[in-house]
Structure formats: C-alpha cells, structure tokens
C-alpha cells in the first residue's frame, strides 16, 4: 500500500507539513494508546481491592523473599522522619519516665528485661496499607511502668519522645493502660534491631503502626493529649485500626 496520504486526510493537517511526509496522515493510534492507558489506570483503581487480594494470596508463601521487593509484597517498610538515627544498645540506652508522676526514673535495657514480660502476637497494620500478619512483640506492659511511676491525678495523657530527635507520639491515659500496649524490646522473637526501632520501641497493638513509635526514649505524663509527629501532619490522634484515618482495615486485635 502507498504510505503517502490521500489528499482528503492531508487537508486537515497543518499547512507547513511537506506533502510527501508519510506521517501526515494515518489513524490517530497514539491518541488511542494514551486514552487506553488512562482507561486501564482507571480500571486498575476500580479493580484494586480484588487484584490486591489475588496478589496477596499469590505471594502468601514465598520462600525466596524476593516478593518483598514488589509493591505490597508483604513485610515491613523502613520509615524514618529524620536523616539519621543514632544507634543505641544495652550500654547507653535509657528510657526516662517523667512529667506528672510521683517517682520519675530512668530504665536501662537490662532494667526493662528484668520486669515481668508480655508477648503479644497480632497483625501489624500500617496506615498506608501494608500489613504484616501474626507478628510477635515482647516487652513490658506500659501500664506496669505507669503504675510503678505513680501517675498523679492531674495526669490524663502520655507523650512519647524518641532518640531520633524528632518523632513524638501520644496516647490518652485510658488507652495507655490497655494490656495490649507494650514497651517492646523483642520483635519476631528476636531482639529489636535498629531499623525496626530498637533497642526499644512502643507497641500499640490496636492502632495503626505510626502510633508504635520507634527508638522510644521518653514517656512523659501530661495533662492533655499533645498530637504527635504525623498527627500534626493530618493523621488521626486516635488511630484505631479500621476505625480511623478513613480506613476500614480488619482490626489487628
């Protein structure tokens, strides 16, 4: 077939186009491809819940661990709000409890390990969508540390600070006394590594994982809830899994 355009199709092209240009005519396939890509994207958004469930069951048991590199391939993702986080270990780690308490004090890692231990196995649910099923955490109940410190009657909330120098979190005193909230030093039955917030992090089982502050260094009893780092940036302060941040994930505890 002659690739030159017919005069009819050439008529609506710009006048400066040389008449022998074989690309001056032809079907507008480029536009169709573009619109098709847009349509596929819209279909992807609509079909996402179904597709995501399918992929999750497809990748459910993967001995190679390679699927961890794929989007939503399961497993933890590393989030830090600062450029670098100092490393702490048993020799220099301290957790201080202060504010509206009768007995402010600080704990070493060994002190925390010597207290009664609780092990909890629940799903970890990030507010951005990833979920790590059946993850064991072990440590001291936050309520135990609060009882030992003696919360004064004015104290109604807790503010958590971290040795990354930036991250903060909060809980009401009522929330903080739940038995499924730990000051954790073990995860997945291993000592908590630096990238997971070690040596000690907060673990708030029933809430989205941003409440479980990494690199925990301070517990301060306050009169009112002071919103934490991400809560100043729009996240809900009461971060119950499935009942906050507009999400409907299955609860984690």
């Amino acid at each position: 077939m002659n690739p030159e355009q017919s005069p009819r199709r050439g008529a609506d092209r710009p006048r400066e186009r040389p008449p022998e240009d074989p690309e001056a005519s032809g079907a507008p396939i480029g536009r169709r491809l573009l619109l098709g890509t847009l349509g596929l994207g819209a279909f992807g958004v609509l079909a996402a819940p179904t597709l995501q469930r399918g992929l999750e069951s497809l990748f459910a048991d993967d001995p190679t661990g390679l699927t961890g590199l794929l989007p939503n391939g399961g497993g933890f993702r590393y989030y830090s709000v600062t450029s670098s986080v100092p490393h702490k270990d048993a020799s220099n780690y301290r957790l201080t409890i202060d504010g509206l308490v009768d007995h402010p004090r600080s704990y070493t890692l060994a002190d925390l390990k010597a207290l009664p231990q609780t092990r909890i196995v629940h799903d970890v649910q990030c507010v951005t969508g990833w979920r790590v099923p059946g993850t064991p955490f072990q440590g001291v109940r936050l309520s135990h540390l609060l009882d030992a410190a003696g919360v004064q009657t004015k104290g109604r909330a807790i503010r958590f600070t971290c040795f990354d120098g930036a991250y903060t979190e909060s809980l009401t005193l009522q929330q903080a006394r739940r038995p499924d909230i730990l000051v954790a030093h073990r995860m997945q039955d291993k000592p908590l590594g630096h990238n997971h917030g070690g040596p000690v992090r907060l673990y708030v089982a029933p809430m989205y994982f941003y409440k479980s502050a990494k690199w925990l260094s301070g517990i301060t009893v306050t009169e009112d809830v002071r919103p934490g780092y991400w809560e100043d940036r729009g996240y809900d302060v009461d971060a119950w899994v499935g009942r906050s941040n507009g999400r409907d994930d299955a609860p984690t505890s």
Partner: protein
Amino acid sequence: MHPRVDDTPTLAAPAPRVRRFSRAERWVHRVTALLMGICVATAACLYLPMFAELVGRRELVVRVHEWAGLMLPVPVLAGLVSRAFRADLGRLNRWGPHDRTWLRAALRRDRRPSSRPAAKFNAGQKTYAAWIAGATLVMLATGLLMWFTHLAPLMWRTSATFVHDWLALTIGVVLAGHIGMALGDPEARRGLRTGSVSREWAKREHPLWRP
C-alpha cells in the same frame, strides 16, 4: 543498495547534518527527563529499604516527590507553544501502514533496516510516547488521590496506592528500556543534544522521514 557515502573518498567532506529537533523540543525533553529522574530517585528513597535507611528524611523526600510529579506535565504543556513540537506530536499520533510493518518486524526480532520502515518516529517510539504520556497522567491522578487524602473516599486511596505502586514498577522497567536504547544509539542521543543527526543515520533509521 547504494554505496555508503563515506566509502567514496571524493565525498570525504563532513557528512551533512539533518535538523531533527528544535531548541524548544530539546528543552522539553531535558526538563521532563530531569523531573522524571527526580520522581524515580525520590520514589526509590521512599520504597526501597536500602535507600530509605540511607536517606531517611521522609517528610522532605515526600514533598520533593510530590512537587516533581506535579510539575512533570508542565514542560510538555509549555512546549505546545512551539510549532515544531506540535508538529512532532502530530507525527507521534498518526500511524501509517509502515508502522504496522515495523511493529511486526520488532515482534519477530527482525533487525534488518529494510523490514523496519519508519518516518521521523518509528512505531516503537510512537508506542512509548503515547504510553508514557498516559502512564504519567495515571501516576499524577493516583498521586493526587494519595496526597489529598481528605478529598476522596479513603477506599479510593488504598486503590490509588495499589495502582501507583505497580505502575511505578512498570514505568521503572520501561524507562530503563528507553534509556538503554538511547545508550545504544549515540547518534540518536546527539540528535537530542545538538538538534541534528547525520544524513546517513536518518536514512538508515528513518528511511521514510523527509526532513
């Protein structure tokens, strides 16, 4: 076949150059490439644990990623004031019978120039241009849904994240192919750097092109 021009000593003068891209078109490509590069680099720092651990600063990286993504269509939109750029968009849009021949040859891995007829842009370049434009708009739309979470039902946000994640992976692979092919063709790169290509290259790679 004709003898190649440089086979003949009497014609040893510097091969004539053919104008391929105007200054405006080259700048559209440069700025788009830069913004896309920023999007890919920041995405790596948000996604891949090794880079996330290296860089941290999540709040800042997210802001840079969002703004680079928002700006990504701007060079192309600004380029629309250029007549040469609009004319090339028309060439990328219109497919002739030779494009089908080219695609069939590409699918058969037939590399002979004679079975790969192309005008100013070959069918592969046309496919890439249309797809990456559509993919960029899908990334922009899903990215905005993730950015302004309170504007849309949050079910949409999870779905948008899903599409954004998988399309990002796909774009990464396709972009690597785009860059890989450019690395393998210095004259094509020279075309985008200086605006002109050798007549011999134009004849070989784009025989139907009438510059």
